């Protein structure tokens, strides 16, 4: 008796709704690094999207909703535009793993003007500011969110005398720039800065070189490493002239996801992910997971799969994503950035989660991380 009436109700109320998601990976040139310890998983990002797709499918089966994902990988030297065009013919919903330049190329294609693209890889500040696009949302944390998070820890610990070593790659330089901005924002000063210029193999001689290299920093509270390609930073730890903590790209880092996050149900997401993919979940996997889950959550709540309805809902106050970080995740309506807590972690444990207690904000404490409404030069969302 229960069965008949309720089934009738649910099938009448919920017509079949289907969503197709395009996943586009545009391979980036990876500079060689000294260590071979951390090979980048081939399905970095994609695996997270797949886990989210599975989550969406499970939910969808109770609502008469279905999802499919089409994947395209563009190898180095191949034409991203052709692949993007192919996907956009099938769906306006794209998850994009690319660097900032390639991302903007796709977002500016005529075929993409009525699309919704999720940036899951690029942390560049400009994408959240003057180079923002109305069809581009960001589930990847911006560099500024990560450096703001780390600087909140510095403020809290009163580590105010700081020095920095910066690598020479573009990503290192933009991370260093974001760090300077964050230090300035929270009123801390950077003392000396040095560029990493060694071309020797540090696995053999770090112990001899790094103490000398860091000796003329004199005394300081913490050493910041800007080494986003993870080339030399790992050899600085425990080799500095002064016994001081190392933070930034190595040591104590700010990340939007890490296997050491256990609280807030995160252990469940880790185990689901590890069972499916046989490895631990990276920050980029998480960003892709959040993008695909965002679309799923919007379709669950609106029972619609058309772009205007989903986009409006995603950017509205009604939207909230449970993202295993202890707070609902929402999107900034001034630049399309996903608001999210940032983990302050070392490879073995979570140390803190930003925003740290005491960093208040008139609207949302999460907006103490990254470009706040008055700071962003984004006009496209107005």
């Amino acid at each position: 008796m229960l069965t008949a009436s309720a089934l009738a109700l649910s099938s009448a109320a919920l017509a079949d709704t289907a969503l197709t998601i395009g996943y586009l990976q545009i391979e980036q040139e990876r500079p060689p690094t000294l260590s071979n310890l951390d090979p980048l998983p081939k399905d970095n990002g994609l695996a997270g999207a797949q886990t989210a797709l599975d989550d969406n499918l499970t939910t969808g089966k109770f609502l008469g909703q279905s999802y499919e994902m089409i994947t395209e990988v563009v190898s180095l030297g191949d034409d991203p535009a052709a692949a993007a065009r192919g996907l956009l013919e099938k769906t306006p919903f794209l998850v994009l793993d690319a660097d900032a330049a390639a991302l903007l190329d796709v977002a500016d294609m005529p075929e993409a003007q009525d699309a919704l693209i999720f940036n899951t890889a690029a942390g560049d500040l400009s994408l959240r500011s003057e180079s923002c696009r109305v069809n581009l949302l960001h589930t990847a944390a911006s560099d500024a969110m990560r450096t703001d998070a780390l600087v909140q820890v510095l403020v809290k610990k009163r580590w105010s005398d700081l020095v920095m070593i910066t690598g020479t790659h573009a990503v290192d330089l933009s991370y260093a720039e974001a760090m300077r901005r964050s230090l300035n924002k929270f009123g801390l000063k950077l003392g000396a800065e040095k560029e990493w210029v060694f071309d020797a193999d540090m696995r053999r001689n770090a112990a001899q070189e790094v103490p000398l290299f860091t000796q003329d920093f004199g005394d300081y509270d913490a050493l910041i490493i800007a080494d986003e390609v993870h080339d030399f930073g790992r050899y600085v730890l425990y080799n500095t002239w002064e016994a001081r903590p190392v933070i930034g790209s190595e040591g104590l880092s700010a990340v939007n996801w890490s296997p050491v996050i256990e609280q807030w149900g995160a252990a469940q997401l880790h185990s689901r992910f590890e069972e499916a993919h046989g490895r631990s979940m990276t920050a980029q996997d998480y960003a892709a997971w959040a993008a695909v889950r965002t679309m799923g959550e919007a379709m669950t709540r609106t029972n619609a799969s058309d772009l205007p309805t989903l986009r409006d809902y995603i950017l509205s106050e009604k939207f909230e994503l449970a993202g295993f970080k202890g707070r609902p995740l929402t999107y900034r309506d001034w630049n399309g950035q996903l608001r999210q807590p940032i983990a302050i972690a070392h490879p073995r444990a979570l140390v803190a989660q930003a925003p740290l207690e005491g960093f208040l904000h008139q609207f949302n404490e999460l907006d103490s991380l990254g470009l706040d409404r008055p700071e962003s030069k984004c006009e496209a969302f107005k």
Partner: protein
Amino acid sequence: MRILSTVAALLASTSLASAGEIWVTNEKDDTVSVISTETLEVIKTYETGERPRGILFSKDFSRVYICASDSNAVQVMDPNTGKILNDLPSGDDPEQFVLHPNDRHLYIANEDDAITTVVDTESRKVIAQIDVGVEPEGMAVSPDGKIAITTSETTNMAHWIDTETQKLFANTLVDSRPRHAEFVKEGTEMWVSSEIGGTITVFDASNQAEKAKISFEVQGVHPDRVQPVGFEFAAGDTHAFVALGPSNHVAVVNADTYEVEDYILVGRRVWHMDFNEDRSLLFTTNGVSGDVTVIDVASRKAIKTIKVGRFPWGAAYRPSPT
């Protein structure tokens, strides 16, 4: 001094009520702590399987069932000796469960597998497995035994199970990350808490329609951190006591008007709870501070904190053995 005398007075008054025990699972110690509802002290600690969470007693209190999540088993313990009598097949990662009014069937949420497992405690066999949403957690069963509920944290639904056919007959959306479910008022209402959504949804159990939504607001705490999790009802179902997780408060909700009447400060990351026999005292598990807060229900005041193991999670009452 005043607090002490209140405690003494309360202790005197509670000793008139029948004596009992609150059993608390310590998720990160693999133990249960047994608290006397008379002395408000831990009187025994027993070892369990790995990561004990859900806990409940058989109708005659002769057995205690414990979800040993990382041992992938429900353990059956003799509460008088602390001996594990046997394990029940539970499916992977059992987190929460309920005992059907028939005193035989356990409905178990298998968090990692998106499944609800039904186990016969007598034959020790799995009699059904039901596909539910991602990360099932909250479990409830109606007093007449006809309906079981599973809530799924990532799918954000309450799944309604017909216990005769062991099949789903309805799926109702709730706010983000549902954690706990209870039938109240003789089974006419079904309540579901949503941790990240920050609400409790009240359903009319007869037609699964949403009847009310309860929100919370703790002064000085950001709304994002006000996260309803476990809840229990005072005598006569007049009021719900709702654990609000990292806001470190328990809310007192009028179950007729659905309005919040009070907030009681307790330990850190308050999670689940249970009452003593006459429901004059409420015991809440506080995961982060590793203790149990005792609340005097009449005055709605916390009267004592009891240190237990690491990450206390579930709580269940039984009368003291005679």
